């Protein structure tokens, strides 16, 4: 099989991983909190897309128009109700809280949606383009990737051009100084968590047509998002983007040339190698957080 096939499909899947990683990285950068409920928020996004499709007959990609603001509000409220209570606490308290929130989400989903995996089958789920050289590109993967690119471009414009976006970056670079500039850092935290949640849910919805949907699927996505963030450098949005693509390609390559059972092994070996050789991540700064 051509070398290009896993490279292409890996890049397409990696784009969606990147979206999940960017959400986690944004939250870490602005709030200095590792959100261990991130994978479960992705799972909720998958179910939202699934039910929008089966109950309301809305195409999973179109449903994003509703899903993104809903997820943002959900994240914003989660921050206001729970996360901001631990923002100045030690990391272990923050980890316990977010793991707890994640467990509540996944177990509520288990209760409500049962443990039967669901499959979201659209009319184009299994269609593909055939390129010369025997390469085929799955239509849903390509659509997901294109939507991901649009969302990342919009996020980039938001962070670099708008006052609120710049205030978010300022808060992540120096929280105390941001406060002294008159930036309401508590509000910035809620916005960052809302954005992180919206990005996680979007990644979930985008991956839903090509993945099985299950209440406990969040765990594997959490590990992936975390690996992506550490690979790119915790708190670096660009790093998370690149890290996502790398993980996608490495997974696809190892499924092709080794076996799909080995793909997680290869990903975590890579993860450990980065931790050993460049602990600050590919785009992180030496010395880590201040």
């Amino acid at each position, binding site marked *: 099989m051509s070398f290009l096939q896993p490279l292409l499909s890996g890049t397409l899947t990696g784009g969606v991983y990147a979206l999940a990683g960017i959400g986690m990285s944004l939250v870490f950068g602005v709030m200095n909190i590792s959100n261990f409920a991130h994978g479960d928020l992705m799972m909720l996004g998958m179910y939202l897309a699934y039910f929008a499709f089966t109950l309301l007959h809305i195409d999973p990609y179109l449903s994003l128009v509703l899903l993104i603001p809903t997820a943002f509000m959900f994240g914003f409220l989660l921050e206001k109700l729970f996360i901001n209570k631990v923002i100045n606490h030690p990391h272990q308290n923050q980890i316990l809280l977010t793991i707890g929130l994640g467990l509540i989400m996944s177990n509520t989903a288990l209760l409500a949606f049962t443990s039967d995996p669901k499959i979201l089958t659209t009319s184009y789920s299994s269609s593909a383009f055939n390129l010369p050289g025997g390469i085929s590109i799955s239509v849903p993967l390509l659509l997901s990737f294109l939507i991901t690119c649009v969302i990342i471009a919009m996020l980039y414009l938001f962070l670099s051009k708008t*006052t609120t976006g*710049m*205030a978010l*970056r*300022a808060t992540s*670079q*120096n929280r*105390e*100084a*941001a*406060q*002294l*500039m*008159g*930036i*309401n*850092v508590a509000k910035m935290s809620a916005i960052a968590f809302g954005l992180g949640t919206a990005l996680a849910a979007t990644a979930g919805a985008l991956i839903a047509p090509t993945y099985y949907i299950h209440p406990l699927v969040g765990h594997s996505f959490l590990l992936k998002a975390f690996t992506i963030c550490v690979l790119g450098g915790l708190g670096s949005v660009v790093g998370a983007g690149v890290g996502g693509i790398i993980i996608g390609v490495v997974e696809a390559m190892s499924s092709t040339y080794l076996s799909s059972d080995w793909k997680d092994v290869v990903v975590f070996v890579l993860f450990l190698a980065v931790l050993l050789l460049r602990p600050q991540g590919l785009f992180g700064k030496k010395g880590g957080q201040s």
Partner: protein
Amino acid sequence: MLDIQNLNAGYGEMPVLRAINLTIAEGEIVSVVGSNGAGKSTLLKAISGIIKYSGSITWKKESLQGVKAHTIVNKGIVHVPEGRKIFPDMTVVENLMMGGYLCQKDCHQNLDKVFALFPKLAQRRTQLGGTMSGGEQQMLAIGRGLMGNPRLLLLDEPSLGLSPLFTDVVFGAIRTINAQGVTVLLVEQNVYQSLNISHRGYVIETGRIVLTGTGEELLNNQEVKRAFLGI
């Protein structure tokens, strides 16, 4: 303009400031001098609302007790923190724009004012803050503070770690800023230069004010000379 009565503050169980009384009148440069760890930075942090305190801080007859830091900025008190704390991955202009975060109008005019005060910043508009030298970062930090249209500017150790050349630039700038109508509260270890440009000063030792007077009186005080100026 600013009136502090019986201020006590600290970090957790650790008291740092004890029964501080201090007033600042409009148009003054007031400096608070003392050695490392005397509580100078804590005093500024209490005024700008980043730490909790007991006692009263009154700004234009309005109590600041319990007011959030970002609201205090809006009232015209801007704190330029120790160690500059500029945003390292933002350009000079972006840093300045963050200083004018609450600015509603005339923001570009403010930018021009800052560039007139520190022409070097105008040449470095697109440079990332983190790649500048300490002296340049200090100019940026002061410029960023001015973007918020302060009535009272709190400066924490602006000359810390600067070369004598940059120190002179910074103290010159403080005079200019004051001449333009901004009241200044200056916290410094550089006792001679800060008292020299100040109308009044306070000497703080282990969290207590031990001496107060005009800048000149303090410079000629035997205790100050012995303890800080090595004369």
